[in-house]
């Protein structure tokens, strides 16, 4: 009789509870890994040769050289920072009407679809791909980068703003409507106070993202610190590259702490 009861406790599965599914998943994962690693072509001799270079990079990172390329770094930083600020401001200004238009509880159906379409297009494409095209159209330099970041900001802010407007407390909007307020007054007195703290928070967050992105789009010619970094790596000047990376990390950290502090202060 005793063997009818299990004598040891076994941890029950948490995610996939069906035994057959679990087995199928495990076999599938192993099969995929075998296939994927099988098609991996790695030139181990090149990797081994690169390790020495990697060591040099780590050394460069530990002993960064801020001085010898300082003029280039300064120029790149100025471009990146100005690009970040202007694109965030313009992006937010454009995305506010689009966000309001993409909120189902505020906009008529036709406008809703148009605005959601704009958001989808802006979010679907990678910043770097947009940057390639805008550099081709507007020429090299931070102006193309500014346009890229503004475009990317629209999708981000407008979507989150629209979702936020859709989730507001209807009772407050109802109360304002009951006073006979017009649509503008409704937006101004019922919607805006509810979403403003979050909009400011999102804008600060996007400022942070835009700075990080501005470090990347320089690789395809859209100006900023990314261009300087690309040049430094192409010249194998790992100590300058290390310095640039440290500056980027430092600014991102300052921006992150600063924006979280500012958000707390504003709310």
């Amino acid at each position, binding site marked *: 009789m005793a063997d009818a009861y299990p004598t040891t406790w076994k941890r029950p599965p948490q995610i996939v509870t069906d035994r057959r599914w679990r087995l199928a998943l495990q076999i599938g994962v192993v099969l995929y890994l075998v296939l994927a690693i099988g098609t991996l072509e790695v030139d181990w001799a090149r990797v081994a040769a690169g390790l020495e270079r*990697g060591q040099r990079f780590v050394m460069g990172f530990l002993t960064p050289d801020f001085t010898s390329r300082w003029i280039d770094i300064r120029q790149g930083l100025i471009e990146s920072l*100005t690009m970040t600020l202007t694109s965030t401001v313009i992006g937010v200004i454009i995305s506010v009407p689009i966000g309001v238009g993409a909120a189902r509880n505020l906009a008529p159906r036709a406008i809703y679809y148009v605005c959601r379409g704009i958001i989808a297009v802006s979010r679907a494409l*990678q910043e*770097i791909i947009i940057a390639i095209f805008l550099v081709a159209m*507007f*020429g090299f330099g931070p*102006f193309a980068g*500014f346009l890229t970041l503004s475009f990317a900001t629209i999708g981000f802010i407008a979507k989150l703003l629209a979702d936020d407007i859709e989730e507001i407390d209807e009772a407050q909007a109802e109360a304002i409507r009951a006073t006979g307020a017009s649509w503008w007054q409704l937006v101004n007195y019922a919607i805006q*106070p509810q979403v403003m703290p979050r909009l400011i928070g999102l804008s600060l967050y996007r400022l942070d993202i835009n700075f990080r992105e501005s470090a990347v789009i320089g*690789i395809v010619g859209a100006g900023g610190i990314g261009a300087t970094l690309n040049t430094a790596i192409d010249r194998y000047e790992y100590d300058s590259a290390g310095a640039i990376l440290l500056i980027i990390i430092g600014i991102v950290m300052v921006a992150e702490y600063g924006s979280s502090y500012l958000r707390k202060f504003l709310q």
Partner: protein
Amino acid sequence: MSEITHHSEVWAHRTPRKRLVMWLGWLALVALFVWCWQVMTENTIWAFVADAPRQAADIGGRMVPPRLSYLPELMVPLWDTINIATLGTLGGVIMAVPVAFIAARNTTPSQHILRPIALFIIVASRSINSLIWALLLVAIIGPGILAGIVAIALRSIGFVGKLLYEAIEETDARQIEAVQATGASPAQVVSYGIVPQIMPAFWGISVFRWDINIRESTILGLVGAGGIGLKLQASLNVLAWPQVTVILLLILATVVLSEWVSARVRHAII
């Protein structure tokens, strides 16, 4: 009962003092914007900007019709791209788990030495885009898929590590205490008290990051780290715009598909 004598006839949302501060804030922002705009556009050649609509029409005209016969050639790079994202996510998650446990306040072995190091790893990994990691790795270990995988993995540490350590910090302390009360060793506490609580979050985060990584791995080829980006770079270099259209459409389809898969999986888990 004292009477309020200094009230205004018209209701206003804010006090005058608050309004003044707000206006000054906005003024400062506008001034900063104008200044930044002038610094940024100092070297802009406006003739190129004015020329942009013509250029756009030109490129747009060259991009259609897409050269669909190019599609079969893209299948191998697409497989590479998916491998970069998947293996990179795998590597990133494996590295992120110990970092997350060290960074979480309730599981860290040392508050003052290891925790700040783990937090720095997370910030450093998060603030450097995968394209920059790829740029470095291509220079170090040579062009190819491996550089892409390592770049994606290094970039994923920060994202997964941050979300995971927040999940660990939010675990229910009572369950951990219950496991401790049975006389479990620290390893057993982690295994039976914490792991079951963060499991759904862990899978959710991993799948979410995989979805982001699919997106990012499509462009890593631009700096030589393998995948479909290599084909994009090659086509752009020879100005083969009909091929560029095909590649972009394929990237878009892949991204939409991976987003759908990740949304389904996350919905099933959480």
